[in-house]
């Protein structure tokens, strides 16, 4: 018994260290391969392309985060039908920590990844750093800036494109038009958080909420400010104590606690509140979300709805509109794996995809960003047979006509996390505003120090 207990203890110890080390161990081997492979790749891929045997179709694998049935499969099928020589297979990865790790590991270990979709600038930057993303400036037959407009520039790394941003990503506040009309409130085209707070108060009915938010764009107001004022001050220290950050915390906290017009954050997080469903069932009249709402709002089987949806831009924190930027612009940044053996074929596919091949994705809220894509057709596919359940004017405004400049979220994950951990504590009432701001700043400073 004595021996057994000891042995079990040691064996378990071994296992802990073993598993942890095992994972990182795998990473390194790949890392070395990645480093050298990345450097070699241009010549290697060129020769592979040239020697591609006639008659045998080139097989490409494209990794993306959208479920195949929400459009990508239809895109790929359409391409494969017209291009028997280049067959594309769509592989889905879930766009979370594990999913991105899976994609990164696949690329490091040289599994077949020819094209992949990046959903954030910080992910892309890591992949560029490791030499996985092909520098697209080598191809001269496609002008990303001209096709995608000025918003594309947010995706440049050191002045170069390592992928093509393909979708218009719009973020907005979806509104229950019927409720707004009943309360005699106009659909705003430019508004502040204070005004939204008033709206929420007026629209709140009984115990319900006046305004709910998807957790993904939750923190956007801060990023809107900091993407302009800078995340760091001139002396290189954290700028997370910007007065508007304070303003944001105060506004939301007031809405959660005094007005009770928006759910307390703790409740929202731990119950994984299904905000789309709450909005679409008519329980809450305003929802801060993005174009992916359309995926649910077009689905009347799971989300029956009897009201019209109108759209408003995301409100601003600052009093004046002249410096305001809104999140959005364009997204779904598709890169070609620099180690792919078929970069030329991947490039033709990517061009086709960006210029309209991606149309089937519109049904899920992903409109093509390229000026050469057929916007009217995409819009039709976006709204499906439900077009008359949307307020078309405000939809056109938030998706196409709103000329407010945009930013692309490019905050490192560590900073995203440290911010959310601290503001959660604030919203839950376990620390004061001043403690929150100073904790954010000191943790951010510490991060800046170690990241150097």
């Amino acid at each position, binding site marked *: *018994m*004595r021996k*057994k*207990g*000891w042995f*079990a*203890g040691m064996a*378990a*110890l*071994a*296992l*802990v*260290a*073993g598993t*942890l*080390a*095992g*994972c*990182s*161990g795998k*990473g*390194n081997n790949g*890392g*070395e391969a*990645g*480093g050298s492979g*990345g450097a070699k790749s241009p010549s290697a891929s060129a020769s592979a392309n040239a020697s591609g045997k006639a008659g045998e179709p080139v097989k490409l694998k494209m990794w993306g985060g959208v479920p195949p049935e929400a459009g990508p499969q239809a895109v790929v099928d359409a391409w494969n039908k017209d291009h028997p020589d280049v067959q594309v297979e769509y592989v889905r990865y879930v766009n979370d*920590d*594990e999913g991105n*790790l899976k994609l*990164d590991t696949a690329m*490091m270990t040289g599994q077949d990844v020819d094209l992949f979709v990046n959903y954030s600038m910080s992910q892309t930057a*890591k*992949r560029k*750093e*490791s*030499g*996985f993303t092909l520098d697209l400036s080598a191809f001269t037959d496609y002008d990303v800036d001209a096709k995608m407009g000025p918003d594309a520039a947010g995706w440049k790394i050191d002045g170069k494109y390592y992928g093509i941003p393909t979708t218009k990503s719009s973020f907005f506040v979806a509104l229950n038009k019927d409720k707004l009309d009943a309360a005699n409130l106009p659909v705003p085209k430019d508004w502040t958080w204070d005004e939204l707070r008033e709206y929420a108060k007026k629209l709140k009915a009984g115990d319900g909420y006046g305004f709910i938010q998807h957790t993904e764009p939750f923190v956007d107001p801060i990023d809107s400010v900091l993407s302009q004022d800078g995340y760091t001050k001139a002396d290189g220290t954290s700028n997370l104590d910007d007065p508007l950050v304070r303003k944001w915390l105060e506004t939301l906290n007031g809405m959660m606690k005094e007005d009770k017009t928006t759910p*307390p*954050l*703790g*409740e929202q*997080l*731990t*119950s*994984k509140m299904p905000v789309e469903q709450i909005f679409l069932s008519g329980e809450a009249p305003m929802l801060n979300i993005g174009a992916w709402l359309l995926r649910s709002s077009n689905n009347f089987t799971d989300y029956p709805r009897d009201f019209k949806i109108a759209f408003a831009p995301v409100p601003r924190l600052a009093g004046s509109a002249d410096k305001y930027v809104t999140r959005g612009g364009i997204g779904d940044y598709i890169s070609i794996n620099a180690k792919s053996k078929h970069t030329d074929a991947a490039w033709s596919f990517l061009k086709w995809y960006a210029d309209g091949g991606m149309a089937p994705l519109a049904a899920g809220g992903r409109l093509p960003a390229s000026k050469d894509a057929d916007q009217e057709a995409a819009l039709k596919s976006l709204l499906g047979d439900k077009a008359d359940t949307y307020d078309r004017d405000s939809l056109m405004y938030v998706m196409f006509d709103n000329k407010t400049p945009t930013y692309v979220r490019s905050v490192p*994950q*560590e900073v995203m*996390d440290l911010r*959310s*951990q*601290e503001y*959660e*504590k604030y919203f*839950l*009432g*376990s620390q004061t505003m001043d403690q929150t701001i100073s904790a954010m700043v000191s943790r951010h400073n*510490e991060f800046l120090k*170690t990241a150097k």
Partner: protein
Amino acid sequence: MNNHWMRRQRLLGYVFVGPSMIGVLLFFLIPAIYSFALMFTNYKFMNPKAGFVGFDNIARLLRDPLFYLSLKNTVIFLLAVPVSIALGFVVAVILNRRLYLKRLLRGLYFMPYITSGVAVAFVWMLLFHPKQGPINGFLRSVGIAHPPGWLSTTTSSMYAIDIIWVWFLLGYNMIIYLAALQEVSPELLEAAKIDGAKGWQTLRKIIWPLVSPTTFLLLVTGLIMTIKTFGIIQAITQGGPGNSTTILSLYVYQNAFRYYDMGYAATISWALFAIILVITLLQWLGQKKWVHY
């Protein structure tokens, strides 16, 4: 002649242990040494630029407030182990009697241990819902106006996780205790009865000391298993709200697979290793006082 035979036997021995030695070498020893080396680098997953940074990671660990916070959370998390052992013992003693439906009850108590952790996580999230959850519904109905927020506040979340973990470990502890109770010799119990011992005295003075090796085993394995668990917390709270449920193992996971910061993750995991080692050694020394073989 004899010598030759002995040598062949010894060689044959190595052949037999060979496969498992290779396994240990490949999957434990080399990665362990490698992760030890990682401690002194700033290696980031995927990033080819890595270099030795000496003791920077260790210095960073020592001044990292999140490390101390997750250490504290880990200690609170570990409280679940003695609690579940005590409860497991009580349940086992009850179920060891002639009891109606005892087979069914044994099965029910063991269920949590064999159910999928993620499914369980979602069920508990519903149970713990601060407004609509049945637990708080019950508490309100018995007159508690302000029941705890469970997972939704930074002060109660770690204890809510503890409750889930006790529930999870209970069945396993109970089964092991049931087996141990079978080993308690009926003669001893009978002799005690004849000497006039009451039920509680028998339990305290005879059964508890006799199953103490089992208690020790459960304590050691339970603590080790708990200290390296992170899946259930990852599924329920991801370490939140705030960082109130970030335990060390989850902190390692986040650094390694969320921030790709392998060097720092290796440092924390070796700190974790040191803690497990110390706890196990302390128990090992302490057991002489209360474990009876």
